[in-house]
């Protein structure tokens, strides 16, 4: 809590120091009755919540006013648009989204800012599913690259681009085929000849079912008899580490990854673009070398099906203007992403081509691996049987020193213990349910929760109530501010 406080001070110097200091006293001090100073403190402590509540009300009032004035024109958007990025914060997709977000914000391309929400997991499908099921009002959109196609065609999910309304494509990054610096292969021909001569021997490091594997599959198609041995290796850095250590033979990288690892010894055999790229003039394209393979990764923006076209048009226009700004172009050049922009029929066309391309290659089932989950379930069963046989588990005194032993077990003590623990857990469950229903805001909900838990756990005195209330108020308001304003998390 002290932490939060410091955080608070550092980020919002507007708050008066009195708040901090009195909070400290109210929580840190042991109860000390009959002291004159206490009276003063109680007054401050009682007064503060009112002060804060008024402030919060004023703040929310202000923002409401601002909202309603913007709403007069009935123009979209009247509130912040949430952009779901189905990958973790700090990754490539996230960085891209935040560059666009910043440009839209700073150049005021939309009347309200856009907010980036990271919903990572399962190759982007957790976030894409959430977007698919979101209300189609234009306030929830998603940024997802070609992964939307590959996750469908490799069978991870059962929907693809058809489940969304495309808004625009912004930015394209070209793939390259790379090998380690000590690799025997000097050109794509040499590699593919060897792959055809020794099918299933040359190890292609990839992310199974992701664009990096599709680059390999497309290459295979150009040479009869060629079959790579695919291994699940992970992201670009891991694929490079595998090549460099000699554990794998070849892999696909984005241009940015190639430029990053080139000095460490990544050698490019072919660029999978339509023409050579200014950032890597010396790398010949696959087309030049006689292989009809083009593989790029585009960043697309999606809205749920049924989003009104005029709202799509508004967002698309804002994205286009953001992409044209120097600020974005500069940043994208650093990410080695080409500032392409497509919308409307061009976009539909591009998506169709890409779907066909990916549908034309099929993912082969990889090596049948041992069923690890079953082995582990077996181990659990064995140990559980052993533990029951030797009677090492069982309800009773814990072997852990830190768990105090129940002393003089009387039914009464036990009852109170169970009541306290159960009440705490149940209240938390109710709190989480109410939060997820989105019925009341985060602040009142947290406030009620903290006060109630406090009440359950201690005898009700006025002093206690006040302490709990003040702490709850400060914590909920500051958490809300820190998470929504500074970190831009989508609080329920």
């Amino acid at each position, binding site marked *: 809590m002290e932490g*939060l406080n410091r955080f608070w001070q550092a980020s919002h110097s507007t708050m008066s120091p009195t708040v901090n200091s009195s909070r400290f006293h109210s929580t840190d001090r042991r109860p000390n009755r009959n002291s004159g100073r206490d009276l003063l403190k109680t007054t401050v402590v009682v007064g503060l919540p009112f002060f804060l509540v008024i402030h919060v009300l004023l703040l929310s009032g202000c923002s409401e006013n601002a909202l309603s004035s913007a709403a007069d024109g009935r123009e979209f958007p009247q509130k912040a648009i949430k952009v779901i990025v189905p990958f973790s914060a700090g990754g490539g997709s996230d960085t891209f989204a935040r560059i666009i977000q910043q440009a839209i914000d700073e150049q005021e391309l939309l009347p309200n800012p856009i907010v980036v929400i990271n919903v990572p997991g399962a190759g982007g499908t957790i976030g894409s599913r959430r977007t698919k099921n979101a209300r189609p009002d234009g306030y929830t959109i998603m940024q997802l690259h070609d992964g939307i196609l590959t996750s469908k065609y490799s069978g991870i999910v059962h929907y693809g681009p058809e489940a969304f309304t495309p808004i625009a494509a912004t930015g394209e990054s070209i793939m390259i085929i790379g090998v380690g610096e000590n690799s025997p292969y000097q050109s794509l021909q040499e590699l593919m000849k060897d792959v055809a001569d020794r099918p299933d021997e040359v190890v292609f490091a990839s992310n199974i079912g992701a664009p990096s594997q599709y680059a390999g599959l497309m290459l295979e198609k150009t040479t009869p008899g060629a079959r790579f041995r695919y291994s699940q290796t992970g992201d670009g850095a891991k694929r490079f580490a595998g090549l460099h250590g000699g554990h794998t033979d070849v892999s696909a990288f984005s241009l940015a990854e190639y430029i990053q690892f080139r000095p460490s010894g990544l050698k490019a055999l072919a660029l999978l673009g339509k023409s050579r790229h200014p950032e890597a003039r010396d790398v010949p394209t696959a087309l030049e070398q006689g292989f009809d393979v083009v593989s790029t990764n585009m960043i697309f923006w999606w809205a749920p099906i049924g989003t009104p076209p005029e709202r799509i048009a508004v967002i698309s226009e804002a994205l286009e203007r953001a992409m044209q700004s120097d600020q974005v172009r500069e940043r994208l050049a650093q990410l080695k992403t080409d500032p392409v922009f497509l919308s409307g029929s061009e976009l539909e066309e591009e998506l169709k081509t890409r779907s066909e391309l990916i549908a034309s290659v099929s993912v082969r089932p990889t090596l049948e691996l041992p069923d690890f989950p079953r082995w582990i379930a077996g181990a659990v069963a064995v140990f559980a049987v052993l*533990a029951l046989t030797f009677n090492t588990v069982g309800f009773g005194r814990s072997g852990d020193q830190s768990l105090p032993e129940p002393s003089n077990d009387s039914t009464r003590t036990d009852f109170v213990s169970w009541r306290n*623990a159960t009440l705490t857990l149940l209240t938390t469950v109710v709190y989480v349910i109410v939060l997820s229903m989105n019925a009341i805001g985060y602040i009142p909900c947290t406030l009620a929760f903290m006060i109630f*838990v406090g009440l359950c756990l201690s005898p009700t005195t006025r002093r206690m109530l006040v302490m709990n209330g003040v702490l709850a108020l400060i914590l909920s308001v500051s958490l809300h501010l820190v998470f929504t304003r500074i970190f831009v998390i989508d609080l329920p």
Partner: protein
Amino acid sequence: MLDSLSNLFTLEALFLMFLGTSLGVVVGAIPGLTGAMLIALSLPLTFGMSGEMALVLLISMYVGTVSGGLVTATLLRIPGTPASMMTTLDGYPMAVEGKSGRALGLGVMASLVGGLVSWGFLVILSGPLATLSLQFGPFDFFALVMMALILIVSVSGESLINGLLSGALGLLAAMPGASAATGQPRWTLGFHELNDGLKLLPVLIGLFAVNQVLNEAWNLNRGQEASILRSNRISLSISDWFSNRVNLLRSSLLGTFIGILPGIGANIGSVVAYSVAKSQSSHPEKFGTGSEEGIIASEAANNATVGGALIPLIAMGIPGSVIDAILLGALVIHGLQPGPLLMEQNPEVVHIIMWTMLFSNLLMFGLMVFSIRWLAKLASLPKHLLIPTILTFCVIGSYALANRMFDVWVMLGFGLIGFFMERWRIPLAPFVIGFVLAPIGEEHLSEGLMQTNGDWSPLLTRPIAGTLTALSIALLFFTVFQHYRGRRVQAKGQDD
């Protein structure tokens, strides 16, 4: 390298370093909020700064978060970050005995030494070490994971079988979600949310934080909290540094080297160092009941992984941990290309990274030493204030991880599981170790088998993998032997 020091001694840089380190310590200490979260979410705030200043802020946050976890681990038995889980095993028992100041002092000292040792390696040997780390192939990684799994035995507590059961349950809990080899969802019971499996943060804070909160609520009417209230000052003397030098150095080295291996990270560094310290100790039976050596091993190692993980990032552009991947993003955004050329083209940036790491470690030490007196009082907050506060942080932290309520439910579920596991005398630490290691192990084993087309033999024939496999087997016999000898000694003591 000294020239670039002047860049660091500007008002802006010092302020950012102070801000980063103190924020890091605080966020690291709060259960539910992790360093990766803080750094990822702060990254967009650095877009407006110069590249150097952004790095100063982010790296000092990194150093701070790894250190901050020790505070709540010791005082409340809630690891603030996954890396400080091992610290709870001995830190909390010491705090219960009224030695919280001493426990924190030792932890802070070990953190500093760990940070400095790994800093030394970062500055002097980053190039060769990074190249060496790339020699680790998938089978070598798997052998290393296997060795760490064996260590479950040594943190089992009083019953070996229960420890193994707990570890196996941890492995099992890691199974639902995307298969490591193909990405296909498995064992999801029809929940789409489970397609990504259970995440470490909600599981960990469920098992430790929620469970501990329930325990506190449970014990509220039993008057058990008195002992920890005795606030005391940090007690740390020069002789502590000297008498623990072997353990400090060994744990720091282990932490550094494990940190260098991409993807293994801080969580495992402290587990390995702890177990090795236990096997080398003359009082292995004290581990888990408030051993000073245990705290030192865990904290030295987890701080050392920070410098270790920066080594492949700076030398090769390969991030060693989740946080390093975000730092890499920060470098790229500011137009800096990490890798061997960074040292040639922008030596000042590399120097800034190194100096920041050194000074934020020192700053962390200073901050923590001076604030320990107040930090130790954290545990003496009335429970009716502490319990709802911790729960609120846990809920918001789990939610913020992926912006979804599902993780909050997972956290509450594991809180209940942890509560009953402890009542059934099943220790929690092996569960977490199993849970952390399962995906790493499966990923590398699958990768290896896919590369060799199903051939297991490299596990024995590759030099690194073979050595590690042999070591694991030796370690297994040794720990089992030590465990039963320890029990015999104890039994004998009771007879007398």
